[in-house]
């Protein structure tokens, strides 16, 4: 601040005030960011530099021992190195470039090296595409990102710190005061446990995240932890995919690996095609059931015929819910079809179809009690049962008569 050189440097003043770039908010250089720069400088080899966007700083090799108070070097791009800066000079120079310095501090010191966290937080503000000036301007307005059913809004404070608000995407327009505020990311374990109707969610990436909550003010590490709590390992897998290193385990190798009570599933693959796995994927992996984008196929040479979905984060192998369901289907599908004869009216046949659709699409709760136009209406179902079932519960009075009755689990 008292160094005339740093404020009058034409190159840096021009860069900071260029009309071609969006308005960058005024950023005060916080002492923790400056201290982190000093720490980093102390650990540098003589020829090394700390690189910020548009400039770098270092320590002049010759001056390291000779003049401990004025040995810093500032190197604006395309200009002569400026040497002999004292700590005070350096502070003034960095305060003029506080946006770039705080950006470095956020990612190098607050966020840290851990690949998934770093990539995720950089992705939120497009840090590998947009300039510091563009990002700070955008962050001032608020950058919104979607992750599953989450709406993440990133902002920047006047000290260059990143803050994040996270809520359900369906609550995007809700006033904050109407949502229950939380601050500990691990609190989300309670949010993800049950859906809005109080039912257990065995699959965290099911599109049934409940609404009504907000994490209004999280730091970078906390927002990553929150996302990983709500959608475990999704960032890690997304990161691997971006790096071209997603390790996909297809259906066949996954089922070959199973043991114990799940060892039977491999017998479902009989070298007679993969239609059964199409059905599994259509049943379990559709976007209406899971927000992950299915990347696994039947095997590495045979793609499934159903769409993998549009999710941001990938699904790299059949999950435990699919494996458990597949065990059940392996048993059920080992049965041979038989011919049963029932008499149904055309409307009764359609009603059975409507009931299956209603269950499969999770619409049961939406069907109103007196809405007898709906085939899956409760009175309609009870009427059908009263008319068509015998005392043993056999449809049309026709015994199931299987040789190997499945008693369930």
């Amino acid at each position: 601040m008292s160094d005339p050189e740093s404020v009058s440097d034409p190159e840096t003043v021009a860069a900071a005030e260029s009309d071609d770039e969006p308005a960058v908010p005024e950023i005060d250089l916080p002492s923790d960011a400056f201290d982190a720069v000093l720490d980093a400088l102390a650990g540098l080899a003589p020829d090394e530099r700390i690189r910020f966007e548009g400039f770098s700083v270092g320590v002049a090799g010759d001056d390291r021992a000779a003049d401990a108070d004025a040995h810093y070097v500032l190197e604006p791009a395309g200009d002569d190195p400026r040497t002999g800066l004292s700590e005070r000079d350096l502070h003034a120079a960095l305060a003029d470039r506080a946006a770039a310095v705080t950006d470095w501090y956020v990612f190098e010191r607050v966020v840290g090296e851990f690949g998934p966290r770093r990539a995720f937080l950089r992705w939120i503000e497009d840090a590998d595409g947009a300039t510091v000036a563009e990002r700070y301007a955008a962050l001032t307005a608020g950058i919104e990102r979607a992750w599953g059913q989450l709406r993440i809004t990133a902002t920047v404070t006047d000290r260059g710190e990143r803050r994040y608000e996270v809520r359900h995407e369906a609550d995007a327009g809700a006033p904050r005061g109407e949502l229950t505020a939380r601050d500990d990311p691990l609190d989300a374990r309670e949010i993800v446990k049950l859906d809005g109707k109080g039912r257990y969610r065995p699959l965290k990436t099911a599109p049934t995240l409940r609404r009504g909550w907000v994490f209004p003010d999280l730091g970078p590490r906390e927002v990553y932890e929150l996302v990983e709590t709500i959608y475990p390992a999704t960032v890690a897998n997304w990161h691997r995919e971006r790096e071209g290193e997603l390790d996909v385990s297809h259906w066949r190798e996954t089922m070959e690996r199973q043991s114990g009570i799940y060892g039977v599933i491999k017998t479902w693959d009989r070298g007679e095609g993969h239609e059964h796995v199409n059905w599994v994927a259509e049943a379990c992996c559709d976007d209406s059931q899971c927000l992950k984008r299915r990347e696994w196929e039947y095997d590495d040479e045979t793609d499934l015929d159903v769409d993998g979905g549009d999710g941001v984060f990938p699904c790299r192998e059949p999950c435990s819910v699919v494996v458990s369901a597949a065990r059940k289907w392996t048993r059920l599908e080992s049965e041979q079809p038989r011919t049963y004869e029932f008499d149904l009216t055309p409307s009764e046949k359609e009603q059975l179809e409507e009931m299956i659709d209603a269950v499969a699409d999770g619409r049961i709760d939406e069907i109103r009690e007196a809405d007898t136009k709906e085939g899956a209406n409760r009175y309609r179902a009870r009427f059908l049962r009263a008319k068509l079932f015998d005392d043993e519960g056999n449809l049309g009075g026709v015994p199931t008569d299987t040789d190997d009755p499945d008693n369930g689990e």
Partner: protein
Amino acid sequence: MQSLVIVAHGSHLNPESSAPTYAHADTIRASGAFDEVKTGFWKEEPHFREVLRTVEGDEVYVVPLFVSEGYFTEQVIPRELRLEGWDVSEWDSDGLSADQATLVAADVDREVHYCGPVGTHRAMTDVIERRAESVTGDPDVGEGFGLAVVGHGTERNENSAKAIEYHADRIAERGRFDEVRALYMDEDPEVDDLPEFFESDDVVLVPLFIADGYHTQEDIPEDVGLCEDHAEGYDVPETVDDIRIWYAGAVGTEPLMADVILERAADAGADLGDALAAVRETTRVAAGD
């Protein structure tokens, strides 16, 4: 950077199955012993297959929250974590003595310390006793009381019974309780016949299970006769054949379990500072309640 990964079974059906895992992870997090504490599950997320890729540290300790050595600790977990070169002989165990094996996890290409299950650790004996204190509300419980340690039995795994006997024997040797018995759900001596095995008027019944669920909330209470139907509920204590039975529910829900997890990691070389003492203190049963 030192990381702890607690791996547990979890459930597709029971929302409370993971609750003890999370609770113990929180206790350990608060102790500051590890730079990070992660949880992974067989039936929940992150799955065993993917938990290690969420771990940042370079000194990784994996502790199975399981009651005995067997199918899960010997086959499923090492396979799903992709521990290269794993063979059960790495543990050189007699069914109770698995401590740790250091192996590269192919998923992250890093070494991890794969520890034995919590249920067979000697510190687990203290948790069973602590559980008896919790359920009776008496930190000095013992005199005039019998203690039944109840396990699954050998249905799937012979080591299951070994762990039950091990802890029951240790508690009996300490002489704190008037009588101590190991009982089982599917082999003799059966928990159904509990009153036949005790002379004491009061018996604390501690199931050696990690989480409350079907076995501890439905099977055992009905088998012992605490209730006709678990939906009716039961009192603690509940009198059956003139014996007051203090049913403790799953021992794994006892806060002191966090101590056993730490002991497992410490045995494998983790640097815990004073966390062990801190966790023992913070999970204590208050006297006089």
